[in-house]
Structures are given as structure tokens and as C-alpha cells.
């Protein structure tokens, strides 16, 4: 009995390549599906809705620019925009600075095992709902709350800290600090230790090593931390509403106001699109800067 050796081997090879392709497809296919489902479709819908109109409190498909005209004509729109942008940017910078010493300690002082445990603690706040955490901050910040009672005990005024930028910042930090800690720690822990020793060997003192070697080497990760803190704070609604008390009309507050006042979904969609556009530009510029290479 003779076997047709070559055709058999060929079909085996064909089967193998088919299998390999199927295997690859298994991993690649979800990507466009997710992108479509969670990015393209909602964005398309948002764009479409921005051209619809509201008739008798009902969203009606249309092709009108009235929502765009209305929103862009609001005299407080750009004030809200820059307030949102400025508040979240300063929150992001402050959160990054606050997180840095802790990240530095986790990356350079803690052993790898200790680092894992500490990062675990950093993530622990995620175990409770963000809303619950914000409500508990109210207990701390309100008049007669924990902080105000302590201040009063020392003879101070002890007025409510709610509806201040400080309260809003606390909210932003509650949301973003764990993420920033993780990103910064990973970035710092991945700095090549030999480069640090080499810098010292070339005469760099600890301060120079930090500013001339560690920070530049960890720049991509540190910048991503800053960017995430910004993105999270920028789109943040809960603490803007419950801790800032709407005192600071940020864009997310504007969105809810527009929806509440007569189901103005198209106008809210326009504000959302403005936010998305500004976020994309910010993220793009930041990432370009973070990964820029010399030479």
C-alpha cells in the first residue's frame, strides 16, 4: 500500500495554515466589534442627535442646526468650557504631584513584594462605589461634619467646606489618585536601574538623578498618569454636583442642566461633542509629547 506522500503533506500544511488563520481571527475580530459597539456607534448617534430637534419634549429626528446655534450662542458656554478645562487641569497637576512621592517610594524604596501589597491598598477604594465615596466625603466636609467639628473644637469658624474648589478637588482626587499612583509606580519601577547608577557614576547627585534621569526616563508613564487624571476629572459629574454643589458650572453640569430643562438632548449632544473634541486634541498632543524622541 502506498501513500501519496506529497499531497498528504500539502493538505496537512493547508490545514495548519487554516488553523493558524482561524486562531488569529479569534483574537483580532473582537477589536473591530468593540470599537464599533462602544465607540463608533455611540459617537455616530451623538452626532446624529445633535442635528435632531425637540418637539413637545420629544426627541424628533431632524436635520437642523438649531441645537448647534443655541449652544454656541450661549454666552456662558466658553466660560464653562475654560472653567472645566482649567479646573480639571489643575486637579490633574495637583493629583500627579501628590501621588509622586508615594509612587517614588513604591518604585524605589519598597521591595517588589511590598510594592504589590501597597498597590493593592491603592486599588482598594475601587471596591466601594464612587458615589458612596463621594457621599462619605460630604460627611467630612459639611458644616457640623467631621472636619468642621474639629476646627470648631479648636475655636475656629468651622464653616462648610462643601461647594468649594477644595471639595471638588477632593472628589477628583478620590476618582483619579489610585489610577495615577498605579501608572506612576509602573513608570518609575521600569526605569533602568543601571542608568541611574551610570548617572551617579558620571557625577550626578541624587537631585540631578531625579530631574535629569528618572523623570525623563519615566516621562511617558508620568504623562499618561497626568492625562488620565485630566480625562477623569474633566468628564466628572458626581463630585461636581455633590461636592461642588453646582457652584462651578462645568460642562458635565451643563449637560445635565440642558437635559433637565426641557429634554434638550440635541443641545446636550452638542456640548458632549465639544468635550470629546477637546479631549481628543488634548490626549493627542499629550501622547505625542510623552513619546517624543530626540534625534
Amino acid at each position, binding site marked *: 500500500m502506498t501513500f501519496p506522500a506529497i499531497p498528504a503533506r500539502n493538505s496537512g500544511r493547508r490545514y495548519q495554515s487554516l488553523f493558524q488563520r482561524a486562531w488569529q481571527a479569534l483574537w483580532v475580530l473582537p477589536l473591530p466589534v468593540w470599537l464599533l459597539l462602544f465607540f463608533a456607534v455611540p459617537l455616530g448617534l451623538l452626532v446624529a442627535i445633535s442635528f435632531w430637534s425637540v418637539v413637545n419634549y420629544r426627541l424628533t429626528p431632524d436635520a437642523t442646526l438649531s441645537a448647534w446655534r443655541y449652544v454656541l450662542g450661549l454666552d456662558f458656554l466658553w466660560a464653562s468650557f475654560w472653567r472645566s478645562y482649567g479646573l480639571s487641569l489643575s486637579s490633574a497637576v495637583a493629583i500627579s504631584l501628590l501621588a509622586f512621592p508615594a509612587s517614588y517610594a513604591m518604585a524605589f524604596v519598597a521591595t517588589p513584594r511590598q510594592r504589590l501589597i501597597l498597590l493593592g491598598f491603592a486599588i482598594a477604594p475601587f471596591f466601594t462605589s464612587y458615589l458612596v465615596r463621594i457621599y462619605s466625603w460630604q460627611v467630612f466636609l459639611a458644616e457640623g461634619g467631621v472636619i468642621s467639628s474639629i476646627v470648631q473644637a479648636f475655636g475656629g469658624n468651622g464653616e462648610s467646606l462643601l461647594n468649594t474648589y477644595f471639595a471638588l478637588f477632593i472628589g477628583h482626587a478620590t476618582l483619579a489618585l489610585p489610577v495615577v499612583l498605579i501608572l506612576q509606580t509602573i513608570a518609575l519601577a521600569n526605569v*533602568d536601574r*543601571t*542608568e541611574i*547608577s*551610570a*548617572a*551617579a*557614576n*558620571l*557625577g*550626578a*547627585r541624587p537631585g*540631578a538623578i531625579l530631574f*535629569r*534621569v528618572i523623570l*525623563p*526616563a519615566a*516621562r511617558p508613564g508620568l504623562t499618561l498618569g497626568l492625562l488620565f487624571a485630566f480625562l477623569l476629572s474633566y468628564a466628572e459629574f458626581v463630585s461636581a454636583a455633590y461636592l461642588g454643589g453646582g457652584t462651578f458650572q462645568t460642562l458635565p453640569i451643563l449637560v445635565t442642566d440642558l437635559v433637565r430643562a426641557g429634554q434638550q438632548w440635541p443641545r446636550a449632544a452638542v456640548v458632549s461633542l465639544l468635550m470629546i473634541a477637546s479631549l481628543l486634541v488634548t490626549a493627542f498632543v499629550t501622547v505625542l509629547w510623552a513619546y517624543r*524622541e*530626540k*534625534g
Partner: protein
Amino acid sequence: MTNAHLKLDGLAKSYGRFVAVEEFSLDISEGEFIAIMGPSGCGKTTTLRMLAGLETANRGQITLAGTRIDQLPVWERETPLVWQSLALFPFMTVRENVEFGLKMRGVSRAERRRRADDWLERLGISSYADRNVARLSGGQRQRVALARSLVLEPKVLLLDEPLSALDAHMAIKMQGELKKLQRELGITFVYVTHSHSEAFSLADRVVIMNAGRVEQIGSPQDIFLRPRSKFVAQFVGGISLLEGRVSDKEDGKRFLDTPDGKVRLAHGAGLAKGATADLAVRADRISVTVEPGWGENEIACTLISEEFAGAVVNLHLETASGHSLVAQLQQRDLEQLDASIGARVYASWHPDDGFLLESTRQSGSSPRVRAA
């Protein structure tokens, strides 16, 4: 060459109970090329790091040009190191890398640039000055690492296996350049390597380390021809060792009783009768014949394998008691030797070609943990 320029005096380093370096003392003259070699974990890199100040010695002193430096922090020492991984800064251009040390010393911008460009020119990499170091080839990166250290005009340059990242061809080319550079500059090189060819072809003196201890310090010839310990003999390679007991004098000649028979020792081998000793014979001094009776010291062996190494061939032999011998033959001698693998052959050598090892310390798994 009498007064030591760089003096290492009784350096010791341990991590907990692990002894990394035990009593390292060495006087290095100005402009000397010292190679420290040994197997992985022998303490050679730890010694280099103590010189650079990256490790603090538990005991001992380091003096450079008459000044004690072992208590200075890293950044105040003038002992730049060329790293095995090069450790170039990837977020800087080639020129910025080279200028780094000068910048740390507060050298003005113009002066920095002039000196960096000088060295880039000298090492033939000035056309890459504004490139990112990640975009360079291995050899070019190697030169950047050298320039970054040499621009500081140090009296001592430390090198930690600097050529191990290069391919064989490039490594040999760089060996030549390093040697030339060292001669021209007249600065002291302390070069850590595990490569025999690098150590023996570059260095004025070679330090062989094992398990934290210095086994031998000497010129490459010294170490190659006269290894002092069993470890060095095995590490250098190409040496056959025979263990035995010194026997009675007969007609004024000394003999060693080995499990494979009695062999004659060279004159002047001053050992007491009954002492155990290791006899070493270099591979190129051993003759191999198929018939016995050709030499004074002759041991019957089995031919185990032939290993071709260019113009010469190494024959691996095994004695009746299971000892390994190695004999190096010219190709034409091998053609005349009519023996196939597994055949019985006779290894012989002149008594004067054998030498006794000074130290019979066991190599290999010596205890490295000192009792606390």
C-alpha cells in the same frame, strides 16, 4: 612602576552571610591594564563596583593617586565605568550622553560641547552626534559609552564586560581599539571579563578570581604557563592534572605515585616524601603514540575524542583510573598517529614539562558561606 597609583587594600564585601569578595589586595601602576576574570559570581563585578563606589566595602581601603577614595560617595569619585549593558541614556542624543558627566561637573555649555565633540571625532562617531542613541548600531553605541566616560579625562577607567554585547567580529575589532586607546591615553584600565581571549590579549596583568578569592595575579604568560592552583589550571584550560603522592628519591630523582603509575618530577620539586601534590602538564607538551616506550613519563590511556581547533587538534584521553588528559597535536602529527576513537594510546612528556601546583586547594564547590 614601584609606587602604586591605584591601591586596593584588603577589600571585602559580604551580603549577609554570603561572602562576595574576601580580602582583595592589588597595587596597580599608572597606565596599567588590569583584567579581572573568573566564572560568574566570583566577585569580579563586585570588586569593580566597589572601585566605582556603587558598593560599599565592609573592610579595606582604596587609594587613588595617594588619596583615599573608598569613603567618597559615587558622584564624587573620578572612576567612570563602561557598563556591560552600556547604560546609555535613551532620552538623550549622542552628544547629550557624552556631555552628561561634564554638565554634572558644572562645565560651561561651550566648553562641554567642544570637549564632547572632540571625543566624538576621536572615536569616529561625530556624524551621529544629534542622533538618538537607540538608533545606533552595537559598535557605535559602544563608542558612545566610551566617549561618555573618557570625556571626563579620568585617571582610571573601569570596564565591566564592555564587549559582551557585540558580535564576535566587532568585539575583536573593539579589543584592538581599546588597547590602542589605553596606550595612547596612558590611563589605568580595570577590565572585568569572563573572556580568556580578551583578558590575555589586552591586559598587562590578569587577576583570576574564584568564589570571592583571588586565585592568582600575574602576567598573561605567567598565568598561562604557570597556573598556581588547580582552579586556575582548569580555568585557563589546556592543562592536564595528575594527583599523586610524592615518593622516595631514587638516584636523586623525585617521583610522584599516581593511580596510573609512577611519573618523574622535574628537578628541584621540593616536596616532602608522602605529600599529596597535583602535577600539571600543558597540552602542547604531551606526546601521543600508539606504541609504549617513547618517553620517560608514560601513561596508558584510551582516546576519547578529537576536537579540531584550526591548525591544531586537542585529543581527549582517559587514563585507566578515569583521569582526563588533554594533548594538543599539530594536524600533520595526527595524520601520522594511526589511532581511532576508543583506541589504546600512550601519553608521554618530559619530566621538565610537568610542574607541581603550589596550592592544592579544591576548586569548584568550595564553601562560600562563612560561619557566623
